[in-house]
C-alpha cells in the first residue's frame, strides 16, 4: 500500500514530513532533457537550476519519486523512473534534504486524461531560495545518469 499523505478537509494534500520516509530513504528527481544547458566553462552540459524549482499554486512543491515505496511494491526503481521515456534522474537522501529545512511527504497521483497514475509520487516542500536551489544540485548524485552531463555548477 503506497504511503498516504496528510490532507485538508477538502482532500487536498498539505505539506508534511511523512514519518515513514526515513532519513536514509532515496528521493528521486527526474531530469528532462529540457532542463539541460551548456556551460562554456566546462565545455559540457549541466542541469539548470530550473530542475530544482518548485511548482506554484496552493501547497506547491518539488515533484519527486519515493524510491523505497517503488521498491517495496516490487518494481525496479531505475526502470520505473525511465518508463515511459524520461531521460535521466538524480537522487537525494531524505535526511540531508530535511537538514536544509525541507519537508518530504507523499502525494500519490491518480490516473487522469492528462497523466498516468503515480502512487509513489512525493513532494519536497519548503523555502526554495536561490541559494538552496543551488545547494540542491550539490546534495544529489546521479541515479540514471546522463552521459556528459555534470552535476557541478
Amino acid at each position, binding site marked *: 500500500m503506497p504511503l498516504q499523505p496528510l490532507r485538508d478537509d477538502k482532500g487536498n494534500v498539505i505539506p508534511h514530513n511523512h514519518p515513514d520516509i526515513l532519513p536514509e530513504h532515496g528521493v528521486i528527481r527526474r531530469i528532462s532533457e529540457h532542463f539541460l544547458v551548456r*556551460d562554456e*566553462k566546462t565545455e559540457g552540459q549541466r542541469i539548470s537550476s*530550473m530542475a530544482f524549482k518548485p511548482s506554484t499554486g496552493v501547497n506547491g512543491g518539488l515533484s519527486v519519486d519515493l524510491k523505497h515505496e517503488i521498491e517495496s511494491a516490487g518494481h525496479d526503481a531505475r526502470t520505473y523512473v525511465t518508463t515511459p521515456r524520461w531521460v535521466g534522474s538524480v537522487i537525494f537522501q531524505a535526511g540531508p534534504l530535511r537538514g536544509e529545512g525541507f519537508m518530504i511527504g507523499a502525494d500519490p497521483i491518480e490516473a487522469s486524461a492528462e497523466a498516468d497514475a503515480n502512487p509513489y509520487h512525493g513532494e519536497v516542500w519548503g523555502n526554495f531560495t536561490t541559494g538552496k536551489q543551488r545547494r540542491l544540485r550539490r546534495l544529489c548524485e546521479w541515479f540514471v545518469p546522463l552521459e556528459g552531463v555534470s552535476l557541478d555548477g
Partner: protein
Amino acid sequence: MTMTQCVGSSTTSATSSTSKVVSIASARPRTLISENASVWNEEVSNRLQDLIRLNYGWDGYNARPVGFVNATFALQMLNNICGPATPAPQIVPGVNGDLQLEWHTLQGDIELHVEGPNNVHAWRALVGDLDGEELNLTVDFAAIAQWVRDITEPPIAAATAA
C-alpha cells in the same frame, strides 16, 4: 522623452472605428532606425515555439507547457536586453508555464526567471563569485542589458593583448 519611429505596432488596434476612416495608402511609415538582423532572434523564436507546444507532464510529473503570454513577454524583454550580435540565451522551461533565459560563459552566468509578465527574477554571478547578485524586475531591464554585455563581450584586456 525618447523620440522613436513607431513602426509595426498599432496603438489603434483596439479601436472600433477604423472602418470609418481610411488612411492614405501611400503614407506608409519609413523606419529611421537601421534594420539589423539579430543573431539571436530566429533561434529564440524557434525555441519558444517548441516550448509553448510541450505536452502536459513533459518533466515526468505534471509540468505544463510554457505559457504563450510568458513566451511573448520573454521575447519582448530580450528585445530590451540584447543587441543584434548578442549570443542567444538558452531557454529552459519551468513546470508552471514559466521559463528561464540563461547564459553561461567563461566570464560568468546569468539566469532570468520569467515567472510571468512584469515578474522577472534576475540572478548573475561573475566567475569566482559563488553567491552572485539578484534583482526582482517588472518592466525596466536596462541593468540586465549591461549584465549581458559584461559576460558575452570579450574582456578588453584579452582583446588588446599582443
